[in-house]
């Protein structure tokens, strides 16, 4: 079990001592962008594992649109995290959206009703987390993934953005942070800039998983760029960008600066 912080943790500011420092601090919105060649799901798995680890003691509300619980259970088990146990202890709330379908034309505001329902489920989960054993713990809301939410909402980008806005209000009113996975290569040329720009404006961290510029390699699966927006870094206000390579393994992900691996 590897508890030492890796490069991604450092870039996100997850390193630190004490209770609750392993989790993203309050009010953080993390956007993970990936593409067909390089899946960014490992970032979500890593963040879930960090949030549920014993030294951070946080809670996770997982909105699953693309895979079932058993899928995540299997993967996280290999990473050393027992999701079933956490689920029983109400530290891990799994909101299963796989079979949910918003009716199209029956009701006029069907999509909105569906999203309001989803939001109310999240609120209930937040309430349960805040009143349970780990009441002072940080709650991470993870959405996997946003493009499927858009499909469920019948392509209505506005409704999806409204839903995200409500989730973001949770980050400021309660001790929550939001992690969103989105695919950046599925939009047609004209539409893409709008939604992606909205997301980048909303996010505090943007993590981008891309293939290597040189092509496919056997031992390096891709490159990860972590951008922290608008921070003070030695009294210089800048966007802090870090770039490293990664290799996804069975029991975790290995991150290293380009060229440092022999």
């Amino acid at each position, binding site marked *: 079990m590897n508890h030492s912080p890796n490069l991604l943790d450092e870039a996100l500011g997850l390193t630190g001592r004490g209770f609750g420092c392993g989790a993203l601090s309050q009010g953080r919105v993390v956007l993970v962008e990936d593409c067909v060649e390089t899946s960014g799901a490992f970032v979500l798995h890593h963040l879930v594992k960090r949030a549920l680890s014993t030294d951070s003691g946080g809670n996770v509300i997982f909105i699953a649109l693309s895979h079932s619980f058993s899928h995540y259970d299997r993967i996280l088990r290999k990473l050393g995290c027992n999701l079933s146990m956490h689920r029983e202890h109400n530290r891990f709330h799994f909101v299963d959206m796989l079979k949910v379908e918003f009716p199209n034309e029956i009701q006029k505001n069907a999509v909105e009703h569906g999203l309001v329902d989803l939001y109310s489920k999240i609120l209930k989960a937040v309430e349960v987390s805040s009143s349970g054993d780990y009441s002072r713990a940080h709650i991470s809301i993870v959405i996997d993934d946003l493009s499927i939410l858009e499909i469920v909402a019948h392509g209505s980008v506005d409704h999806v953005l409204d839903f995200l806005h409500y989730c973001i209000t949770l980050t400021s009113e309660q001790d929550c942070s939001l992690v969103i996975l989105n695919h950046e290569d599925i939009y047609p040329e004209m539409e893409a800039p709008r939604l992606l720009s909205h997301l980048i404006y909303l996010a505090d961290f943007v993590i981008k998983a891309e293939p290597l510029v040189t092509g496919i390699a056997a031992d390096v699966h891709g490159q990860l760029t972590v951008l922290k*927006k608008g921070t003070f870094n030695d009294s210089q206000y800048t966007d802090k960008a870090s770039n490293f390579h990664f290799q996804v393994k069975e029991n975790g992900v290995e991150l290293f600066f380009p060229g440092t691996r022999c």
Partner: protein
Amino acid sequence: MAESICRSLRDGSIEGEHSPALTIKDSLQSHAGTHAFNYFLCSLAANVCAGKSQARGLVLVAFSQSPSFYLSLLKRKRMDASLLTKCLRILDCYSDPLGWKEKIRQSSGPDKPVFTESDYVCRDVKDITKLLSSILELGKGFSEGRAYFAVAIDSVSSMLKHASLPSIAGFISNLRSHAQVSSMLWLLHADLHEPRSTAVLEYMSSIVASVEPMVEITDGQKGSDNLFWLGRGLQKGRFHVRFKRRNGRVKLFNEEFHIEHTGITFSTPSSENIVVSQTLLPKQLQFNLQLSEKERADRSRVLLPFEHQGNGEPIQIYDGRRSLTESNTGLNGLQQHALSIEMEAQRMQSKGEIHYIRDSDDEQPDSDEDPDDDLDI
């Protein structure tokens, strides 16, 4: 200049005229627009609280940040909390813009979820008419019923997400022409909308302030380059202001801004910030491309074959007006400009004198430049 913008917002409107309106425009390349908005908001709020402005109160329409964020921001600027409660009203369009929390509250059973909310919450931001009337109501609630008030909107981009451009244009126009509105300011993210929306809002404002990066990055590529321009230094940038004055004149200002811990500061542009173009030479060269002083002196003493004949004639510089002494049947206007030594020589009848007429004064003697460079054939 930033100061003149603050003064303009402070002084407010004249009877019978639209109130001054400031648009702060930014983009992802230089997303420091929120800092600029906070700066002008704090300045206006300070003026209102101190009684120095025409407006007796400030109505802040908050879409993208919670009201508590603004209150803590203003308190950090050392504004008196009691004065703030008297002079500031925040219309909360952030917590529950579409009324979802209200719906959940109504549909949930005995254990209603508890929401912490501020005093004035707008639950339906799509209804622009109702939004307008809420703002006007809040504005009338300041000390005397007939007092002026200022309006700040953060941000108009969020409004455009929920309502159409014509309705928002009408909303802003109504506010600007309202007798009691003293001044307005709003924030706009230019790359979230079509250029048309940005243009409409710019037309409706008297001051347009754009926050731009120091060096404009113009490649429209997507992909992995997309985020790297976000990683560039945000600390400095250009602040470009277009000021429409009452007398109809338009003034353009260019300043620089710096972002520090305390917030954003504006300064006059300094020449040192012009990006020094890197020469294309590698760092270590085997040979010397510059001339030393001695070499420069030696070069100036070289007797050029045609110009310095020493025959007492003054150095003539061709000024394009005089026609040449020989016939110019074969020459057209273009060719007259670029007479070279060889052509001159050919026209000489006798002993092969060479009359060298230099093209212009700034052509260096013994220059390697091709005099036909500017020919446009």
